[in-house]
């Protein structure tokens, strides 16, 4: 009973201290909101307008029709119409166009006489992903055009005899390819992690640097009471951040919440034990805030990039997937998206749940033992 009272008093003290700090408040309340909104809009891999230069050296009916096909696409904006290939290349070098469509001067003639004809697509491929998407998008437009050409100009003769394969794609969970909701859920994970890990660790090291930890050590307060009083406030803040984020996502980006919110919060609690444990551990091995900042930055950026926030973890090399076993962010990233976007239930995520439970036990034990030694 007495223990609980001490803990309660300590908690009151911690909360007061956090909310008194002027630099802390914007970091807890304003910065995450700005980040959630800004990042979600900025971090878009959705293709918008593809800027195209058309080099039509043929100027035939076929080439003009193809040009109008590209012009009609909502994703393509033709910025330059020329016959001079060199001019188009200069524009490509200056980044004013992303892709050049080159139709050589016997384009139509070859199509008639030789039954086949070549045209060239020159893509600025410095951004490989974008280049791949541009290429497949343009190919799709060309193929549509080609099929129509066959039936319009030459009739359907022949095509009935050819075995054709119908591929019917269907897209589940996100039929409109809204990249924002996917990104938003990822950013939410990063913010919850950042708040949990960084603030806990900074807070602890600050006490250490200023020498106030020593003062606590000579009072009858037990170690576990002290640590719990340090961890609980940030856990509460991180959970609050998650709830806050879900509301913002729901209102601004139409974030779907397919699964159970209760399950999500339960999982987040376990995850936060791991994250706070890591924060606590980092604080035990650094002496100054500067050291800690660098260590935390290093771990955060590595964990974040490997978590699959931008790119799927399945496509990572095997060694990276092995490292991901100890990357808590990867577990959470995966699970939050599954619960929110696909409505996964407990049995779908039980493996991740128990893994993190074991992880939490290990890291907290390690951090607490290590903590005792250093003070």
């Amino acid at each position, binding site marked *: 009973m007495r223990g609980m009272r001490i803990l309660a008093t300590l908690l009151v003290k911690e909360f007061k201290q956090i909310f008194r700090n002027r630099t802390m408040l914007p970091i807890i309340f304003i910065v995450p909101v700005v980040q959630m909104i800004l990042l979600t809009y900025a971090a878009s891999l959705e293709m918008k307008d593809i800027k195209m230069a058309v080099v039509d050296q043929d100027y035939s009916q076929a080439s003009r029709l193809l040009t109008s096909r590209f012009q009609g696409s909502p994703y393509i904006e033709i910025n330059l119409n020329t016959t001079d290939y060199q001019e188009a290349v200069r524009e490509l070098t200056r980044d004013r166009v992303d892709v050049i469509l080159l139709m050589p001067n016997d384009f139509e003639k070859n199509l008639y006489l030789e039954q086949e004809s070549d045209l060239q697509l020159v893509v600025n491929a*410095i951004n490989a992903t974008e280049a791949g998407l541009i290429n497949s998008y343009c190919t799709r437009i060309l193929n549509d055009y080609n099929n129509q050409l066959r039936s319009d100009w030459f009739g359907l003769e022949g*095509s009935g005899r*050819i075995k054709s394969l119908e591929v019917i794609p269907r897209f589940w969970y996100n039929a409109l390819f809204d*990249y924002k909701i*996917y990104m938003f859920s990822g950013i939410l994970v990063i913010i919850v992690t950042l708040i949990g890990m960084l603030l806990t660790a*900074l807070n602890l090291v600050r006490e250490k640097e200023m020498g106030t930890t020593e003062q606590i050590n000579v009072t009858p307060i037990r170690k576990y009471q002290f640590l719990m009083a340090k961890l609980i406030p940030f856990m509460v803040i991180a959970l609050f951040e998650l709830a806050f984020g879900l509301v913002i996502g729901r209102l601004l980006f139409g974030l779907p919440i397919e699964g159970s919110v209760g399950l999500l919060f339960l999982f987040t609690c376990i995850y936060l034990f791991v994250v706070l444990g890591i924060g606590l551990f980092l604080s035990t091995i650094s002496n100054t*805030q500067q050291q800690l900042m660098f260590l935390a930055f290093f771990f955060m950026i590595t964990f974040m990039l490997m978590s699959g926030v931008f790119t799927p973890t399945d496509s990572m090399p095997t060694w*990276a997937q092995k490292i991901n076993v100890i990357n808590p962010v990867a577990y959470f990233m995966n699970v939050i998206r599954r619960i929110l976007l696909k409505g996964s239930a407990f049995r779908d995520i039980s493996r991740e749940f128990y893994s993190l439970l074991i992880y939490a036990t290990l890291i907290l034990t390690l951090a607490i033992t290590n903590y005792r030694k250093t003070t």
Partner: protein
Amino acid sequence: MNRFFGFVKKEFQHIFRDVRTVVILFGLPIVMIVLFGFVVTTEIRDVKVGIWDRSMDPTTIRATQKIFSSGYFVPAGYLHSEEEIGALFRNGNAKVVVIFEEDFEKNLVRENRAAIHLITDASDANSAQISLNYLQGVLMTYFKSLNPDTELPWTIHMISRMFYNEELKGVYMFVPGLMALILMLISALMTSVTITREKEFGTMELLLASPLKPREIILGKVMPYVLLSFVNAVTIILLGFLVFNVPVVGSIWLLMLECMLYITLALSLGVLISTSARTQQMAMFMSMLGLMLPTILLSGFIFPIDNMPRILQWLSAIMPARWFIVVVKNIMLKGTGFAFIWKETLILLGMTLLFILASVKRFKIRLN
């Protein structure tokens, strides 16, 4: 002059005494380039595919084999009902499910057309589309090989050429961005924190009271980071070249010169931050939130600027990294000369002068 070098030496010792920070300083570029080169790739590999073969005839079995021997896909299980698809997606065990319709082969032979349904988990929109494209490619190639002589008449072939990056390597995009990020991190963050630290601990007063001129103090503080940043820039270029074959097509000297300009810019920005931050923590948060995140997000490092909403595009124009990345891409990957980048260089130069002027104006000789 001797006094000045003594001061610079002291600063170097300060930095190198803290082994852990030094390790991170030099290790960071290496780890980042490995991560970006190998891990953060949008190239797909080992996508988990579930198969629901409702026909089970020789053609569909062969098609399934073709899918898994392509190298991009691994089996995630064989399904027997519609409900199993949802379960497979929900526990994350599959990204795509391929459904061959009933009597697939029979339809193909008798009616000359047969259908395959590809159901993708599009919660990750981009990789869903990329996997789908690959899968379609594999299937089309296979079915084309079934009837080789029926080449369609009047076919237009698209010959694609990938300029500047023929093998479509993701790392080409990241090397310039990493340079911008790491140089900014080391130069601006570290300088702002060290100068503020002296202020916080009160040792700045001691330095100011010494015969050293304020100009020399700041220069001395900044000098070690010029060197550190430069070493890091060279490390990134070398690693990119040796590990990932990212070339330096243009003039290496021009590249180095531009790097120096950018480092100077970042350092003056760091000094400017330190003139307005009172505590280390404040300086850190200012550099982290004001510099790091925008440098990662708004500079075109990972996410193309063209895809952003207008407001963010305008915002990105005030990010030094944005212009530096254009310069590096031009010199390294496109091999263009100064004629193509004079505008960006001028902007960087202007920003540098602005930051230096502002910090000189704000720098106070007396602390209180």
